[in-house]
């Protein structure tokens, strides 16, 4: 090692490190935390309403952790579903969201999925998607409030779906003329439930969430396990996530800038370290 300064080989190595550090992160499919990707016009889009259909295999998935919701109902902390896999796809007319989760018992009326005759102690499996009624507002995670309402898409295993409006716990009220349809399947211990919402709705922004590509849409998820007597506030819920439906659907533009800055910083540190070692 000499004191003549960096050799040609060292300069080339430094340049290579800088290039890789700056470019590589942008090539990786990095996804911001809490983002649930929305696939636009996937192949076989007409088959998205089939919960276990192949069309869903080509839609990227996000695994979302669930935890017991904070609630005043008895046994609120006793929930059993710990994660839900979410896939979302958008076509010209609709947003499709599929929730999939493991549940060893199907508590349902669904043909082929009954495990017992429903009676007075039967509770049904259920799932829900919660969105701010007004996408520019940020409602509390627990069903919003009377000023920041939430639009809830609800499915329960007797194969019923409802579109609900809520302004805090215990206030869910069905919205007339629902714009949400659901379909569900249960196979090998896994529920797949597809929610389909038409993009164009009459009263978007008031009682119904606007999904027209103007902005990202916050979303939270809930699952109830009927055989654990889960109902009402006894449910497994997620934190707020979001669908990147706003401008720049590839992800927020600042992400690339941040990656480049970080990459350059790392490269500078590496080069400085190498040079420092050579000089000593």
């Amino acid at each position: 090692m000499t004191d003549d300064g960096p050799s040609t080989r060292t300069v080339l190595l430094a340049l290579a490190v800088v290039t890789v550090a700056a470019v590589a992160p942008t090539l990786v499919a990095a996804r911001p935390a809490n983002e649930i990707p929305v696939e636009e016009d996937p192949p076989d889009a007409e088959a998205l309403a089939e919960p276990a259909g192949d069309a869903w295999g080509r839609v990227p998935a996000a695994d979302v952790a669930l935890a017991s919701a904070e609630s005043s109902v008895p046994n609120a902390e006793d929930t059993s579903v710990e994660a839900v896999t979410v896939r979302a796809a958008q076509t010209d007319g609709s947003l499709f969201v599929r929730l999939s989760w493991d549940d060893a018992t199907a508590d349902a009326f669904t043909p082929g999925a009954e495990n017992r005759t429903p009676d007075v102690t039967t509770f049904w499996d259920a799932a829900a998607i919660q969105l701010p009624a007004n996408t520019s507002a940020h409602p509390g995670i627990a069903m919003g409030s009377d000023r920041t309402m939430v639009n809830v898409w609800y499915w329960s295993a007797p194969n019923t779906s409802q579109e609900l409006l809520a302004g805090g716990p215990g206030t869910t009220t069905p919205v007339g003329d629902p714009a949400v349809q659901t379909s569900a399947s249960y196979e090998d211990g896994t529920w797949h439930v597809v929610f389909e919402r038409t993009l164009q709705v009459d009263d978007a922004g008031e009682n119904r969430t606007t999904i027209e590509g103007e902005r990202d849409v916050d979303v939270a998820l809930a699952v109830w396990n009927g055989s654990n007597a889960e109902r009402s506030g006894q449910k497994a819920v997620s934190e707020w996530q979001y669908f990147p439906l706003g401008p720049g659907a590839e992800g927020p533009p600042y992400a690339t800038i941040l990656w480049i800055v970080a990459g350059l910083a790392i490269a500078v540190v590496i080069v400085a370290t190498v040079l420092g070692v050579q000089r000593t």
Partner: protein
Amino acid sequence: MSSDSQETETETQTGTESGAGATVELADGVEHQVAMVMDLNKCIGCQTCTVACKTLWTEGGGREYMYWNNVETKPGRGYPRDWEEKGGGFESAEQANQEDVHGEREVGELPSAEDWGRPWEFNHEDVMYDGSDESLRPQGPEPEWGPNWDEDQGAGEFPNSYYFYLPRICNHCTHPSCAEACPRKALYKREEDGIVLVDQERCRGYRYCVEGCPYNKVHFNVLSKKSEKCIFCYPRKEAEGPDDEVRPPACATECPPQLRLVGFLDDEDGPIYKLVEEWEVALRLHPEFHTEPNVYYVPPFAPPQHDDEGETVGVERIPRTYLEELFGEQVHEALDTIERERERVERGGESELMELLTTTDMAEQYRLEAFE
């Protein structure tokens, strides 16, 4: 129940005793409170009340298993089975260290379909119309329990066995724990008369009310997926029948021995107020549940015990301790009062209490128009 809390209960009740201008305490926001007194000495266990209620309100549509009015044998496990042990209601204020009418709500247990008793399907068609030689019996799995499974079983040993009948409806409590249990406030007390109802639009079938009612008088309809309960026949009270007449609940009017008085607790000229507040002989069932029922019972008497020779001995047939379990410590004073007044009449004297308990005047017995 501890003796301390019982004393407080008694104090509360004597605190509302009739005096000059004294009034009963009603639930917040309730103008008048409907109430019923049932004289258990008159009940013959014929179930006419049960059938009257069933044919009016719960014949089908997921209600087959429901008896909004039932009559059970006591001692006995009741309907639903062992309801007295399934919890619900409130702690006492003392238990919760509160200066309130009651303490924290206690979460109860959801009775199973077997506890209620499955509605049996009978082979009526085969036996009645198709000439089958089979006996008429429930079809399907052999039943192992049902309403009235232990009818007339009672307790004690010959010749001193004993039982009595206990008709039960929703108590339309002053502090209904069913309503408090509902996170959606789907159950509510009507302002005008304190009747407790389930708003079928608000109900989402969570069943916290079913497990929250310590008397197990809220039922779940599997078909509508909503809770349902005794409505105190409010359409009859509101003269919604074809003849526009105000009528008391069907369980009361159809009763052959006419053991029920129907009116308002706060109608100070009515027999209910007098029996509950003045004479203190009509008592709440299980006051230790702290929901403050508005159905009251005149406790039962039975002939005294016999010895082996069939001679009467001076021991009460229905143990006071058992009646105390059902009606609280006040039962002693209530039974003593009735006995005293009965003897007064036997001696040729007059007794307002005996008049109240033996009236055949329908206008006195049913006073649902007292405030109109």
